[in-house]
């Protein structure tokens, strides 16, 4: 990798190798799988990582349901799962492979659609080498990615075993001609145009204090407030009627003959929470923390005097959220401020964002630190919360008063959310990168272990 970054001379013509290749970039995460062609500016295919199954899991007749189009339909016996573990590594390889394959084949390349015996593709071409025959032949591939090299991202803490597994999937299952595994942190730095950077990636799950943490905080907030705030997802509501703020909802609900599994309801509740996060939740932007402040009042008091933001639940219940909307995000910065309930104790102080940054900076050489602080790249959907960047800036300048702190956060939402994919896309389309690919031949020669040697 360092070879690519330091090369300031344009590569010779022979290094381009296959200039015509269209490499695929796959960036799996806990909330979504991003896939697209290298060189494009946003991933074409963004598929939720959650998938549904119908029927008993271990039996052959289990039916898998992938993609936003189908997993949100309430069906009896529909269970929602996620193949990724909470820290962004793969837990269930078999399904993850299927899910990624879906992400790639549904929008990007073709996959064999019908039985080869039936679709007429294998019939001997009688019109000798004309265009139609050529096209038919190109659809004949047994494996979906036979002419696309694949660049996959991984978390920095991916285990050696799962790295080997990913090259196996790419080579054996998909028949990729070449493969590369890139750390997503590095990709984010690429997308930000930095050779070295401190990457703060606040996605859904990667650190224990990311998107799902806020969802959790919201759930606690809703259940502990008095009266309880109902969290009714859209699919349960047939129609709603406007009611006064805080008044009980007046709505007609849908009734299902068969019970809908809890995991489905949870997924749908997440959609409501997502909307809540987008339109209500805010981060206290500093200076100081929410519970500190000047002249005897705390910032929390200040915030309470600000006009609140209303939110309407799918069933019509609505209320204005004042100080609470700052409170739910405060746990990311200050563990003491996190809302807790018996099942969800406060996170350790060492897991808050400032503490994590401090720890990772402490791990690098002291000379590099100022350089890193001047190149802080922020990415991940959760970082889009109002005030997040300001707060991070204020926390960092407070922690490191000496060196100059410069944050770089793309204003474009898509760039912020998909930075690691975009980095992969840039990497994969670099001419100089083509010599880095692990080719199929190398894989056949050295086995899956080659990924440990090459992709560092």
């Amino acid at each position, binding site marked *: 990798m360092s070879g690519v970054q330091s090369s300031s001379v344009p590569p010779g013509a022979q290094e381009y190798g296959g200039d015509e290749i269209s490499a695929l970039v796959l960036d799996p995460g806990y909330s979504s799988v991003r896939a697209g062609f290298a060189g494009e500016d946003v991933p074409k295919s963004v598929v939720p990582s959650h998938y549904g199954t119908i029927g008993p899991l271990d039996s052959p007749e289990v039916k898998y349901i992938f993609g936003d189009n189908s997993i949100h339909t309430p069906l009896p016996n529909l269970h929602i799962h996620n193949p990724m573990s909470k820290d962004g590594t793969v837990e269930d390889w078999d399904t993850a492979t299927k899910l990624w394959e879906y992400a790639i084949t549904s929008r990007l390349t073709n996959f064999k659609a019908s039985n080869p015996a039936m679709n007429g593709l294998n*019939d001997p071409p009688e019109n000798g080498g004309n265009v139609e025959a050529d096209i038919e032949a190109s659809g004949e591939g047994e494996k979906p990615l036979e002419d696309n090299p694949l660049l996959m991202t991984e978390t920095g803490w991916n285990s050696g075993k799962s790295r080997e597994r990913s090259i196996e999937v790419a080579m054996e299952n998909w028949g990729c001609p070449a493969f590369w595994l890139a750390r997503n942190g590095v990709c984010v730095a690429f997308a930000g145009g930095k050779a070295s950077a401190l990457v703060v990636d606040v996605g859904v799950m990667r650190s224990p204090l990311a998107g799902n943490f806020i969802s959790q905080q919201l759930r606690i907030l809703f259940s502990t407030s008095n009266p309880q705030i109902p969290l009714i997802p859209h699919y349960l509501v047939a129609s709603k009627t*406007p009611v006064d703020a805080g008044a009980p909802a007046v709505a007609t609900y849908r009734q299902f003959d068969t019970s809908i599994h809890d995991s489905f309801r949870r997924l749908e509740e997440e959609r409501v929470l997502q909307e809540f996060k987008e339109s209500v939740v805010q981060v206290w932007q500093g200076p100081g923390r929410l519970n500190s402040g000047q002249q005897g009042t705390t910032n929390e008091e200040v915030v309470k005097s600000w*006009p609140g933001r209303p939110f309407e639940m799918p069933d019509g219940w609505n209320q204005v959220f004042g100080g609470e909307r700052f409170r739910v995000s405060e746990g990311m910065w200050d563990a003491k401020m996190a809302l807790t309930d018996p099942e969800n104790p406060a996170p350790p102080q060492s897991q808050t964002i400032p503490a994590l940054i401090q720890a990772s900076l402490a791990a690098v050489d002291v000379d590099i630190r100022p350089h890193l602080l001047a190149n802080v790249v922020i990415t991940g959907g959760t970082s889009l919360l109002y005030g997040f960047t300001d707060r991070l800036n204020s926390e960092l300048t407070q922690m490191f008063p000496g060196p100059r702190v410069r944050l770089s*956060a793309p204003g474009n939402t898509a760039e912020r959310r998909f930075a690691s994919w975009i980095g992969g896309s840039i990497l994969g389309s670099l001419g100089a990168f083509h010599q880095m690919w692990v080719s199929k031949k190398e894989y056949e020669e050295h086995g899956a272990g080659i990924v440990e040697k090459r992709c560092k």
Partner: protein
Amino acid sequence: MPAIISPGSQTTLAQLGLPESFTPAKLRLPTRMFPAEKKGEWEPCKIREIRSKKEKTKTDVVEDGSSDKKEDVDMLDVDEANGVKSLANGESRNEEDDEPLYEEDPYSEEGAVYPLKGGIVTNWPAFLALLTHVHNTLSPPFHTPILLIAQPAWTSHDHELLTQFFFEKFKTPAFCIMDSAMAVCYAYGIGTATVVDVGYEKVDITAVSDFVAHEVGRGVAISGYGGETMTQSLFELLGSKGWTRDMCEQLKKSNICEVLPQGTILPGEPQNDAQTITNPAAAAPTGATESGPRVTISDVDMRDDDPIIKDGEDNDGVLDVASIVASGKTAEFLARKEREKAERAAAKKAATDAANAVTKPTRLPNSKKDRNTFWYEERRHSHEDSDAVNESGRRATEPNGSKSGGDPKRQKTPEPEAEPGATSEAKGDAAGDIAMTEETEASRREKDKAARKEEKRRNKQQLLAESRDVLRKEIEVGVERFMAASGGILEGVADGIHRTVLAVEEVGKRGELWDSLVIVGNGSKVRGFKDALVAVLNSKYLISPSSATIFTSELPSNLSTPLATGANTPQPQLPGMSHSSNVNPLLLAATTASNPALNPAASVISHQHQQHNLHSSHGQTPTSIKLAKIPEYFPEWKDVGFEEALFLGAQVAAKVVFVVDQGISKGFMTRVEYNELGPSGIHECSL
């Protein structure tokens, strides 16, 4: 003079050339192919082998053994004396009696292969054969650029395959693939819209902002919600009563099939029953308080609304209230009045029921009638009939349309006799003299009109001729006709729309997207579908102004939130700044400046202005839901409706890209570029 091809799961629309005023597609073909005798080859309609020893005196029989490629189905010649038609393109010839004869059966669906399923190409050989057939039917002269409307479900790989196919098979000089949602935006002349395309087996929902379709979160080919779904639910309801699928299909297309807004009480049914059927959820036990759209309307009240009965009998005459009160018998009087009223209502009810039974209710709107009738056309299969041969001429472009996937009401815009002339003219000015083309087009349109009259007359005759084949039956149907959407299609589509709009990252754009819903696709043609869908959206998703912020919402929104630094505020972005992969909207502004009707970009600018003034204390959307305004300046489209607006948009785009812009801003791929870049170059320049 570009050619436009727009394949759909059921019907493929195509047209050669751009008339001065854009018309609905000239050519409508069913998207299906039939395996031919020889394996790997395909025919556009069912070919049957007949061994007829009949003497062929007048009728020419089309020999269609290996290839249909050269036929021009549109050039019909009618032998009006005996209603016999034959292909007049010189291909046909008399057969030797001992050779097997082939006949085309334009109506048979036996063995048909529909290569597009739910927008996805499932059978490439058949699909390519279909494209070849469409291309040959259009029979464009050389140097005809082609615009292909792409289904959203097509993958990048599909686009490359098609590019390769069009360039290498048809030797087209220029080729362009345009996304169907984008085409709809061009038709409506708006850059920001939520396009809902209700197709045959699927619905596509696309959020387009500033002429860029949001790929992330796009509802691509959501299967199970389409016109077919509605036929299916009708069939489920009526199948047990001896209805066939075809009857349900025709019922759906008839104008008595209607989708009523949620909670509407069906006529002639006891109220409770009606509700459980239209909206099972509404009858379900509800939460804390009973509410909402369940407006209780008593039977008598409903009758009062009926125009027939509302003859003023009910307003108890003019009463001298004062005298009654003075007489001190108020209670007694009122009771008597009540009794009279009830009696009258009962009598009236009986009367109307009787009236309904005699199918007399002419003035009642369909939605109030218990039962209604429609004409069902059944096609008799009479292959051995000598008529069958004649039908071969009519086949795919069967003007009556009932089998060609279109609406039976809609007449295919007739192909005028002027066509061959226009074609040869076009050959003359193949170099692309635009002015010339337009002139000829104007004159052609004149001829068109004349031709249309002629065609109408002819259609009538055809109908007469056909009446031997077609059985027309009047069929009566009850309230089932209001239940086409009972399978949850409205809820499903509404959820898809909600999901798609919320997936748009620029929060500021969402309000605008909710305010410009565009519902197209022939699936949405069912009466009342669009209104019912909007009603569902309104009742499920509309965010009403919160009573708690009634006063604060008057403040500019940035008082309630800390001033944004810009880095983390999703700001509405200027068009063209954030996305590089699209045709520059400025191009549109420049290229269409002379013709304001074609200028969708102008409306973008005005939208932008609106946006800045928008403020709401709600970050949540939608605070209002509106359908986008239907474009006004296309008279030909007004009559047929804008369900196929994507074809209109395709014509606008073809004009912009091929005629006005002429490739300056890479709206299409030229042959030279194809030779240089190969098929993957299409991604650089498709719309």
